[in-house]
């Protein structure tokens, strides 16, 4: 049980190493998107810092979501997914390992970089800390829920409208709480409530999402 977890994780990281540019690109994408907003909105620091929570969170979400779409598709297209389904190993563990690998490779760097970009938006230190924490607690939910979407889109074609309808709205609460946490601390209010909601949603999705994902994957292959 433990060992297949490591084997799959190791492979995900190996693949990420082989395409190092993927990791770097997630970072630069985040960097670029978060620098686009000042370009569109104009350089006034007061306005910029008021929109900073929203901007940084949207950028993180996009970076995460973009890289997620490929989570299963390459395994699906080349037949590895079939092999995973008939492996004498629990599918759930394989899925969790894949999602975790993805989060390490694409989520973590963004979380670490976000505070530095926050500097560009002239956020004070305590707000940067909350930004960091909110991303740390919030992005696992994005990865986990996104995995369901990625799995569903593998099989369902044409009616994938349904997928968009199902998964994208699930991101919204995370965004609201995440950006809300940062905004609250910006206004000198406590962010604990928001942060604990984020943590709760991560735990909830850690329990539920892999099951949904594995069902979706079986459907996709049939």
């Amino acid at each position, binding site marked *: 049980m433990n060992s297949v977890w490591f084997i799959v994780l190791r492979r995900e990281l190996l693949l990420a190493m082989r*395409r190092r540019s993927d990791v770097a690109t997630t970072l630069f994408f985040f*960097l670029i998107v978060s620098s686009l907003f*000042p*370009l569109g909105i*104009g*350089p006034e620091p007061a306005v*910029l810092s008021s929109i900073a929570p929203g901007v940084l969170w949207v950028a993180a979400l996009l970076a995460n979501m973009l890289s997620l779409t490929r989570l299963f598709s390459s395994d699906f297209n080349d037949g590895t997914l079939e092999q995973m389904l008939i492996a004498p190993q629990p599918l759930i563990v394989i899925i969790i390992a894949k999602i975790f690998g993805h989060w390490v490779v694409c989520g973590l760097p963004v979380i670490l970089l976000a505070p530095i970009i926050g500097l560009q938006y*002239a956020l004070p230190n305590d707000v940067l800390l909350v930004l960091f924490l909110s991303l740390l607690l919030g992005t696992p939910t994005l990865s986990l829920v996104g995995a369901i979407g990625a799995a569903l889109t593998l099989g369902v074609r044409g009616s994938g409208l349904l997928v968009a309808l199902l998964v994208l709205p699930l991101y919204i609460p995370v965004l609201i709480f995440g950006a809300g946490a940062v905004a609250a601390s910006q206004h000198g209010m406590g962010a604990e409530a928001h942060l604990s909601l984020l943590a709760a949603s991560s735990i909830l999705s850690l329990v539920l999402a892999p099951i949904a994902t594995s069902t979706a994957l079986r459907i996709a292959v049939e």
Partner: protein
Amino acid sequence: MHINWFKYSSPQTFYPLAGKMIPWFYGLAVLFALAGLYVSFALAPTDFQQGEAYRIIFVHVPAAWMSMFIYIVMAGWAAFGLALNARLSAMMAQALAPTGAMFTFLALVTGSLWGKPMWGTWWVWDARLTSELILLFLYLGFIALQSAIDDPRRSDRAGAVLALVGVVNVPIIYFSVKWWNTLHQGSTISMTAAPKMVTIMLLGMLFMALAFWMYSIAVALVRVRCIILERERSTEWVKNLFGEEK
């Protein structure tokens, strides 16, 4: 870079030539740097407004100059390589990119370091700063694209297309960012904080710029030698080369 490239455009003849030139360029770089440092730290007076902090200008401005200059040179090599199918010029473009990115990064970092005491903030969305940041992205895009493609011929040519598209876009970016800034906002802090340029400072920056330039050439040559070896590793002359050295 004033060598007759046509004559030496075969990697095999260029490799030893580059090897001979490298020490000279390094030497020149050190000489200019010493002169520049002397002028900028010993001769240039302390600024009455900014104190010693202003001396960062001697790194910042030459680095900013080099960052733009190298991009144009790089795109030139890339275009040349694409049009004439000249392998060596594509390799030159590839070798220059990291140095260019490094100077861009240096200009950004020194600028930010300077900005904190001067403007009270690390970063403002000023035209010049913004376009320098975008230049960094262009460099990084070029490097990322080339490193993502294994086949050397393909990576050269794809990189060249990108560099050319980028070079068309650089002036557009520069002016659009300028207009953007002047069009919509009142005044943020501008460059007026910079001290008046006395001749001695200009001289210091000039020396430093020359030092950076020589350094860039030397580093690019070192890198191009590595690239040549890697790409031609299966050819006879490379095997002979290493046969002799062992």
